[in-house]
């Protein structure tokens, strides 16, 4: 079984696999203020609905010209909503969201022929349209969107807040074209029909008895949708779709029951306005949430960069000071050797001076050696900071820190976790850095990859007393000629790299009694693995 999880509740216990996923309205759970706001808006709209009831039957003559503006607004809002929903699908695939987007697109497109065919709205066009056309379009539109909403709720129930790969542009385009074709077909058939359409209207204003079934069907669908969404309610989008359904029900209540289906009355117009509000709701949520998430992402990116630069500065300072410390004895050794040669090269060799010089060389050699030893000690000193660590927890922590980099890189991160705890003795920060470093390298290696999925796979397994972690990418891999040098200090295949990362990683892992290596037979991409000795019941072990 592979469960997916979201937000900060990253877990890798037992058989549960993990996938990092982007923050989207379709998978971010609603916060409490958002839920309160949704309820408040629903209550406000409900009040407006009830307030309109006493005046519902009053006819507003000559309001036909307002209708095209209303229809245009409705069409634009619904099509925009569909486009934004489709855009989220390129990152995270939900069947439910696809159905919702299709429903909005269908509804938005049909709003145009509905307005065009509305009796008395476009007399100048001289359209000779059957009196039943407008009502038929309205019925198809209403039931269509209601079905899409129900489909959304049902798929939500079936899939959970699942996260698949982003959908390809081609399949999204296909979806859009299919919906557009369906809308065009419905429009053509109804607009060109002469008779044969169901008799929804008694005349241009009043509905016939047959219309009864349309609101009844829609109401049933709304009720089902609302019930399912209220039961599951997992994401911000779910929350607002519930409000949308409620608003649509209010609209229909006013249009078909309070106003008795009679067009251009106060009840009918109020219902229309509610419909527009309802249509705008998802759009508003999408736009505002996108803006908020974008701001948060920008903030995190800026902080990330600062962290990285700070780390780099420390590394530079450290390496400069090490270089200076080693260069001093090296310099005096070289100068002493030259001096000794010169003292011995004289017509009468001056042995005591040469001997002194050689003794100084020996002393400086030892001094340089001590400096090297102390530098190693910087890594080893952390022996005192060692604690018992659960390696899976260290992995989770490191991956959590990288979640934004993963999303930004358009990379799918797949983790095959340990089947149980793996206790090691070590330094949490250093081991976390190793994981971060390896994954970051993998992400950077994938940057030039286009046209296929960017995948980073982390495999964890136990082999005897060793815990083995592999980080694999499906990027261009490491060239044979570079494979032998890749762990050397100051060697980098990146133009902006310091070339210290892998060397430091290897040093850290070796200081923990383990090994870090590049898998030699990786057919595609590069795979780096490390192994650490596992402690059984917190006692020694691991060494073979």
């Amino acid at each position, binding site marked *: 079984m592979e469960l997916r999880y979201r937000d900060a509740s990253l877990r890798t216990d037992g058989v549960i696999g993990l996938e990092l996923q982007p923050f989207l309205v379709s998978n971010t759970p609603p916060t409490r203020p958002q839920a309160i706001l949704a309820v408040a808006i629903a209550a406000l709209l409900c009040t407006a609905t009830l307030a309109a009831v006493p005046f519902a039957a009053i006819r507003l003559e000559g309001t036909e010209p307002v209708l095209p503006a209303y229809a245009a607004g409705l069409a634009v809002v619904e099509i925009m909503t569909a486009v934004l929903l489709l855009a989220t699908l390129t990152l995270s695939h939900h069947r439910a969201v696809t159905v919702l987007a299709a429903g909005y697109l269908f509804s938005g497109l049909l709003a145009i022929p509905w307005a065009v065919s509305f009796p008395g709205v476009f007399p100048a066009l001289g359209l000779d349209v059957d009196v039943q056309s407008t009502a038929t379009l309205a019925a198809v539109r209403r039931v269509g969107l209601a079905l899409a909403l129900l489909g959304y709720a049902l798929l939500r129930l079936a899939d959970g807040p699942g996260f698949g790969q982003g959908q390809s542009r081609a399949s999204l385009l296909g979806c859009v074209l299919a919906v557009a074709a369906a809308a065009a077909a419905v429009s053509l058939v109804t607009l060109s029909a002469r008779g044969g359409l169901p008799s929804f209207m008694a005349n241009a204003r009043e509905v016939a008895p047959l219309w009864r079934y349309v609101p009844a069907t829609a109401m049933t669908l709304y009720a089902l949708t609302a019930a399912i969404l209220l039961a599951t309610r997992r994401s911000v989008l779910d929350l607002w779709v519930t409000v949308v359904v409620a608003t649509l029900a209010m609209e229909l209540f006013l249009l078909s029951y309070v106003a008795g289906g009679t067009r251009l009355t106060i009840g009918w117009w109020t219902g229309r306005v509610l419909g527009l509000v309802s249509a705008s709701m998802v759009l508003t949520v999408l736009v505002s949430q996108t803006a908020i998430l974008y701001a948060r992402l920008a903030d995190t990116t800026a902080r990330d960069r600062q962290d990285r630069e700070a780390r780099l500065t420390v590394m530079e300072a450290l390496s*400069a000071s090490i*270089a200076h410390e080693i260069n001093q004895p*090296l*310099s*005096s050794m070289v100068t002493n050797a030259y*001096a000794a040669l010169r*003292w011995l090269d004289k017509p009468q060799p001056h042995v005591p*001076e040469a001997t002194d010089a050689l003794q100084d060389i020996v002393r400086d050699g030892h001094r340089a050696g001590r400096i090297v030893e102390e530098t190693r000690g910087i890594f080893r000193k952390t022996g005192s900071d060692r604690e018992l660590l659960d390696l899976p927890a260290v992995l989770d922590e490191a991956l959590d820190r990288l979640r934004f980099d993963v999303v930004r890189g358009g990379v799918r991160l797949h983790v095959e976790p340990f089947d149980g705890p793996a206790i090691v003795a070590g330094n949490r920060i250093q081991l976390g850095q190793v994981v971060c470093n390896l994954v970051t390298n993998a992400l950077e290696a994938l940057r030039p990859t286009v046209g296929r999925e960017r995948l980073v796979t982390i495999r964890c397994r136990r082999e005897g007393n060793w815990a083995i972690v592999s980080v694999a990418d499906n990027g261009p891999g490491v060239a044979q000629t570079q494979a032998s040098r890749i762990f050397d200090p100051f060697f980098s295949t990146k133009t902006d790299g310091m070339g210290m990362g892998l060397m430091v990683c290897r040093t850290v892992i070796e200081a923990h009694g383990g090994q870090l290596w590049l898998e030699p037979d990786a057919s595609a991409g590069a795979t780096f693995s490390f192994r650490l000795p596992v402690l059984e019941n917190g006692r020694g072990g691991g060494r073979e």
Partner: protein
Amino acid sequence: MTTGTTVYVVDDDDAVRASIDRLLRSVGHEVVAFPAPQAFLGAPRHARPSCLVLDVRLPFMSGLEFQRDLALRGIDIPIVFITGHGDVPMSVAAMKAGAIEFLTKPFRDQDLIDAVHRGIQLDRQRADAKHVLAEIAARHASLTTREREVMAAVVSGLMNKQIAALLDISEVTVKVHRAQVMRKMGVATLPELVRQADRLGLPKP
């Protein structure tokens, strides 16, 4: 056996200092080494051709700051810089301020020896020039007031007759003073006298 030259070394690293001392002594320089710039300033200096080997990275004061400090104090000694981490802007700054050479540790023995040699040559030339100037000044000082007036007039290109009119003396007297000036200044020709006047920076009319 020494060449009668002194090389001063300022480096805070004992081992580096000792090795440079040993190398420069092997080619016959007398070496006086100091761990800090203050020690160099406090020590007596020999009045013979010398050169300073200076580490860029020193405690409390960088080698480049010390170079400026020396210039302000009017201590004129050629400097060879040595550094563990030289960069281009640093070496440019040092060379512009008159350094002989900028060597990165570890350096080749010949490079240091050559640089020190060039420094000593320069110091010797400067000392010679100073010595000559002092001699000319002493000679000029031995002239009488009238002789100095005649010399100033002569080097400014006036004829004997013009000088006589200017100083209100006879032309013969001018000739006598002029011969005295040539003899006392130790020159045989007029151009030589003009060059000496130039070196002394005598005001031109």
